[in-house]
């Protein structure tokens, strides 16, 4: 590169501080942006156990560039590409600034989230991107964007000489909905409904993370029973998602009876959630200031449903893990080494299969998690699809355990506490960060309010963070492993594409 770039002291200082933080052992939580007057604010989030810290800098419109953090922090690359798509600000030094979520035509307007103004027509260029063909006899197999089954749309380009997966590229922009822009101008009461639809299979976690941000800003403490209720719905969501991951594995392995059994268990969980909330996805329960309704079943009905579901799931999982034609497909498949997982700051069960134990419920307890006996799961280092699956299985056990505790506590509080949500100041201003541990891993919400209206909301799903690492999960795998590795990552594409 012959060009030399001159950044202001503020910008270089920001990049240096973030890099140093990560070098000292903090986990990179994300890099976000929001429009301000004739500038764009970059906000980096670093997490270190119980503490979450932020650092920010203004990038002036006169020089819309900054030194790429991803040179040292590989986890930052997708964030830098996303910020380039939405704001047009360049990370200098990033090897590949390809479009990630929005491939706009050069010279077109960009969404400029947070500006609160219409930026003009945004032209999108869908012509296929280049492929990285390497070597003789190598060809590219596109998977998607219309997948061969009932899946969300995403495109994978697999480069292969025939059987081995040499290189993988992921294109997530197909189903980008521009949902962040829709938050702007809404009040928090509507905002939570949209948060539930950012990553629809993790509606409860997203609603909790969004509401926590609003509640922190308002200085509001939610009622204890509301916290317990949030735990109940969030853990049922975790069980449903982990069962979905098991279902995807059994489908890939052609285990027809196991597939039928686990889809049945999942249906039971979804029906229990509908009986508790009126929605099979727990929507409408979590609202700013608490929850909107008490569980729709009695304590004994809840206990008997939980008992029945747990007994069925446990027996079938035991049999599944003892089925050699299943376990053999997962063992040693799609290894994410602990080193890769650490460098990418892997989240959720994907991280916990590779020694990254970050769990927002334990590190920075929210809702009622601090008062329940939530134990950390086993430290695993194998990093293969089997380790990720075992992590999910153990998490389900823990979930059943804390659901029972939460129901017990709610029963004790019954009648002693009003369940209605705490009112939130209708003219709230300021910004804050909320979080929750979704089934896929930690969800972050950066929320900015001005006189009761949302001016910028940036959700960060664990799916987004983890999928950046997906191409590193094929060290020695072949085409037939692909479905297992994809299922073991368990990401929701809606939460990646935004």
């Amino acid at each position, binding site marked *: 590169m012959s060009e030399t770039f001159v950044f202001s002291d503020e910008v270089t200082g920001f990049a240096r501080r973030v890099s140093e933080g990560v070098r000292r052992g903090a986990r990179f939580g994300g890099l976000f942006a929001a429009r301000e007057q004739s500038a764009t604010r970059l906000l980096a989030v670093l997490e270190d156990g119980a503490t979450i810290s932020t650092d920010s800098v203004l990038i002036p419109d006169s020089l819309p560039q900054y030194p790429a953090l991803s040179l040292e922090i590989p986890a930052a690359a997708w964030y830098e590409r996303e910020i380039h798509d939405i704001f047009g600000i360049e990370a200098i030094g990033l090897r590949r600034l390809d479009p990630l979520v929005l491939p706009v035509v050069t010279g077109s307007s960009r969404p400029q989230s947070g500006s609160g103004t219409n930026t003009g027509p945004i032209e999108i260029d869908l012509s296929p991107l280049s492929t990285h063909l390497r070597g003789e006899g190598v060809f590219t197999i596109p998977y998607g964007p219309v997948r061969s089954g009932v899946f969300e*749309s995403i495109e994978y380009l697999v480069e292969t000489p025939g059987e081995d997966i040499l290189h993988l590229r992921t294109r997530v922009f197909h189903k980008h909905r521009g949902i962040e822009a829709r938050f702007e101008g809404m009040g928090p009461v509507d905002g939570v409904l949209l948060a539930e639809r950012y990553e629809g299979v993790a509606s409860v976690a997203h609603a909790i993370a969004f509401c926590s941000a609003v509640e922190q800003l308002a200085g509001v403490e939610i009622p204890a029973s509301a916290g317990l209720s949030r735990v109940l719905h969030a853990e049922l969501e975790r069980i449903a998602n982990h069962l979905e991951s098991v279902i995807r594995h059994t489908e890939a392995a052609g285990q027809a009876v196991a597939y039928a059994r686990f889809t049945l268990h999942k249906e039971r969980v979804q029906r229990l959630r509908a009986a508790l909330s009126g929605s099979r996805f727990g929507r409408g329960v979590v609202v700013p200031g608490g929850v909107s309704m008490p569980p729709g079943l009695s304590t004994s009905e809840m206990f008997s449903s939980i008992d029945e579901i747990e007994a069925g799931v446990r027996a079938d999982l035991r049999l599944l893990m003892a089925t050699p034609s299943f376990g053999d497909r997962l063992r040693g498949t799609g290894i994410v080494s602990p080193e890769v997982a650490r460098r990418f700051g892997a989240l959720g069960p994907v991280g916990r299969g590779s020694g990254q134990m970050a769990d927002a419920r334990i590190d920075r307890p929210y809702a009622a998690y601090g008062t329940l006996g939530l134990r950390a799961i086993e430290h695993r280092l194998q990093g293969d699809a089997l380790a990720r699956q075992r992590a999910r299985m153990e998490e389900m056990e823990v979930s059943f355990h804390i659901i029972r505790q939460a129901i017990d506590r709610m029963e004790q509080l019954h009648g002693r506490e009003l369940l209605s949500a705490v009112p939130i100041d209708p003219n709230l201003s300021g910004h804050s960060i909320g979080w929750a541990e979704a089934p896929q891993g930690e969800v972050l919400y950066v929320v900015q309010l001005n006189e009761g209206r949302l001016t910028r909301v940036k959700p960060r799903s664990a799916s987004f963070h983890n999928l950046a690492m997906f191409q590193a999960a094929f060290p020695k795998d072949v085409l037939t492993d692909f479905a297992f590795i994809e299922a073991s990552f368990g990401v929701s594409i809606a939460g990646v594409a935004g």
Partner: protein
Amino acid sequence: MPWIPRGLSEGVLTSRYPRRADGYGPAFRASISVIAPAEASTHIEGSAEGCPTGAITILDDQPQIDRGKCILCGRCTELRPDVFRFDPGFETAGLLREALVVPQIAENDEALRLARAELGRRARALRKSVHIRHIDVGSDGSEEWEVAALTNPVYDVHRLGIFFTASPRHADLLLATGVGAAGMLDALKQTYQAMPEPKIVIAAGVDAISGGLLGRGYASQGGLATTVPVDVFVPGSPPSPFGLLYGILLALGQLSTADRNPRYRSWEPSDKYPGVADPGPRSEEFGDEGRT
């Protein structure tokens, strides 16, 4: 081998819907109905604290709710429980976009008859084996769970001769979800074009019908009907598996028994069914069949 007894351990769990009513459907909140007149008030229709998707209009004291926009958040039922009510019943799909607006004021019987006749011609050619191609055009991910649930042992659509196929070349019916994300519109067109005639399109969920809460935006078209000709609209955010199944059977004209049974006509003015509608016979667990 140990899986065989496991698979048989719980007996038959499969619903007999549509041959018989299923207890689960009516136990589930699936739509909002207007139960009384109300004066126009921006508090409900459009203000920031009112209906978040603008699904409600009030003209001459007659409120109407557009189920093609309603995300079932229930705010209107909290603000005005005297006017709006959650109703059970999953048979909310319709053949005409206008028919999702309830209660109906304009007569569109003739339009409905024409749509039904035209769709019937196509559906007859498909006879008793129907292959579905699903496509995600910008969903939130929950719709895919509900579509996939149709193959679980409870709904088991295979018993009705309905199958999912990977290739659009083999598909008779396109089941599309999502708001119409700009990056998926070409894929939607190509998938539709690749399907052989006769073909049927279902827009599954309010996102696919109107864009839902997201509506129109820089990357969202606000529904799919401007890209492909939609034959059946299935409301819901997301639509429940029974709601989807009803929509599929409606498209295929396989609801002759249901048409005669007033219980299925949940889009009728609900004052026919005072109070919460009869939830029908309940089983031990799934539908009216229970374990055998």
